Structure formats: structure tokens, C-alpha cells
């Protein structure tokens, strides 16, 4: 059995107040404290302070767990939500270009239309670059001559 000295005993008084010591050590320490006024007073003070401590609220672990689940859910939601602005912008651009094509078609004269750009594939300087006028209806030809004039 160990005979406790004050200096050693005081190191364990807070553990004694918290009931954290093995039974055999507790018994030895109790023996010292009961015969030592100084250690006895210090143990009383520590027990008083221990009694004054504010315990964690019983609902705290549930609050922590709930908050943690909310955070995890938020992170998971955010992982796909962060792409939303980009997706919205892409959708907007695609729809805007479609609207532009459908609603704002420019009025193009016959001279500006693509089929007029086709030219004779000829090395003859007189013919090269002439407009292809095949397959034109008589009405289209008249309109063309009107424009040229």
C-alpha cells in the first residue's frame, strides 16, 4: 500500500472528485485526505467547484447530429446546384438564338440570296462570275431584272 504525500495527493484530487480513480487508489487517497487538513480542504473546494459546473444540455448531442445532417444535405444539394447558373445561361443562349432565327429573319433581296452567289465554273473571262440563272421561274427573273434596273 502506498503512503501518499500531499504533493502527490493533490495531483489526483480532481480525479477523486470526479470519481475517475480505480477503487484501490481511491481508498489509499481517501486515507490520506482524511488525515490531512490541507488536502481535505482542497478536496472540498474542488468538489464544490465540480458541483457548480454547468453540464452540457441533454438535447445538445441531438442538436449537433441534426445540424450535421443539415450541413451534409446542404453540401450534397450544393454540389449539383452550383451548376444551375451555368445550365440556365446555356439554356437562355440556345433559346435566344432559336428565337432570333425564327422571329428576326432579315428580309433579303433576291440579289443577296445565296443561290445568286453561284457562278459559272468557267475560265472564260466573259462568262466567269455570271449568275446562274437556271431553274428560275419567269416571275423570279422579272423581279431580278427589276432590281438590276
Amino acid at each position, binding site marked *: 500500500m502506498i503512503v501518499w504525500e500531499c504533493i502527490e495527493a493533490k495531483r489526483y484530487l480532481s480525479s477523486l472528485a470526479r470519481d475517475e480513480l480505480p477503487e484501490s487508489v481511491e481508498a489509499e487517497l481517501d486515507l490520506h485526505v482524511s488525515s490531512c487538513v490541507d488536502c481535505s480542504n482542497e478536496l472540498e473546494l474542488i468538489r464544490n*467547484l*465540480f458541483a*457548480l459546473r454547468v453540464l*452540457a444540455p441533454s438535447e*445538445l448531442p441531438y442538436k449537433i447530429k441534426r445540424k450535421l*445532417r443539415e450541413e*451534409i444535405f446542404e453540401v450534397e444539394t450544393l454540389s449539383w446546384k452550383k451548376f444551375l447558373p451555368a445550365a440556365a445561361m446555356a439554356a437562355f443562349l440556345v433559346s435566344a438564338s432559336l428565337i432570333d432565327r425564327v422571329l428576326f429573319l432579315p428580309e433579303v433581296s433576291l440579289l443577296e440570296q445565296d443561290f445568286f452567289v453561284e457562278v459559272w465554273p468557267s475560265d472564260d473571262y466573259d462568262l466567269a462570275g455570271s449568275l446562274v440563272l437556271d431553274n428560275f421561274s419567269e416571275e423570279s427573273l422579272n423581279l431580278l431584272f427589276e432590281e438590276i434596273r
Partner: protein
Amino acid sequence: MKPQKQTSDEVLVRMACSGQLDAMDILIDRYYSVCFGTCMAILQDQDHASDACQNCFVKIFRSISRFRGDGTFRSWALTIARNESLALLRQRKTRREITYDKADLQLQDKENVSEKIFSKMEVSRVRKAFETLPKKQRLAVKLRIDGGLSFREIGQIIESSEGAARVSYHHGVRKLRELLEQ
């Protein structure tokens, strides 16, 4: 594998890293009380300490993959609790005192202790004496008695060595005794 209550911290941390909520729950049940004690020692306010403790665990699990395992999970959690409490303290700037009513409620919960000594006056005296202790001594005493922290853990929190934390604690208790005996 499903985590059990007796599963070691090391295994629980690995499980928590892979996103197992059951493992996180067991770590919370194991350490919320000591983290709350640390927050309470710094913030001196139950509501603030609860907030800090919740934030602390959110931070722990957000960064758990970065826990290298050099020290224990408990020490790491306590350091985060300390930092969170100090951040909250800086944010709010004011420290509120625990009301005597709260202290009285605590005493009513502990029948055998309330039988012993404390009257309202004595609670007030102890609190006043406690407030006169230097900050490190006050924290060391609180963390040791309220939170049951080892001197090594207290040293980490008050940014001192283990030996200095032990000395701060003993000086604090001695000074408190002297003040109360006057």
C-alpha cells in the same frame, strides 16, 4: 461494417471519413460533453457554449479527412472546440456571467452536494473569487474540474506545456482557497 459503441476512435474516424453517419454519431456521443466543458470554460455562457460546440462538430466532420492521427482524436476535437470558442468570443466581444439561478439549478440537481454547503451567497463568493484568478489559472482549473481534461490537453488549450498547465492549475486552486478563506 457497422460501428459499435466500443469501436476505437481510430476506426470510427476512418468510417466517418467514408461518410458513415453512425460513426459520426458515436464520436459525438463520446465527446460532446468534454467539448462543451471546454467551450463553457472559455465562453462562460451556456447558450454560447452550445453554439460553439455545434459549430465545432460541424468543423470536425468537414475536415475529418485532414485529421492525420498524429495526436488523439480527442485532443484534436478539443483544439477545434477551443478555436471555435475563441472565435465566438472575439465575435461577441462580451462575456456574460452565468446567472446565479443557473448555478442554483445545478445544485438542486445534485441532492447530496446541495445538502452539503452551498447557499446563494457562497455560490456568489466562489464565482467572484474565481473571476479574480489570472486567465490561464482560471481556464486550467475550469478545464480540469469541469471538463476532466488531462494536463496535457489543458496545455494544448491554454498554449502552454503540460508542466505549466499543471502549475497553473495548482496555483489557481491554491489562490482560490486563500481568497475564500479570507
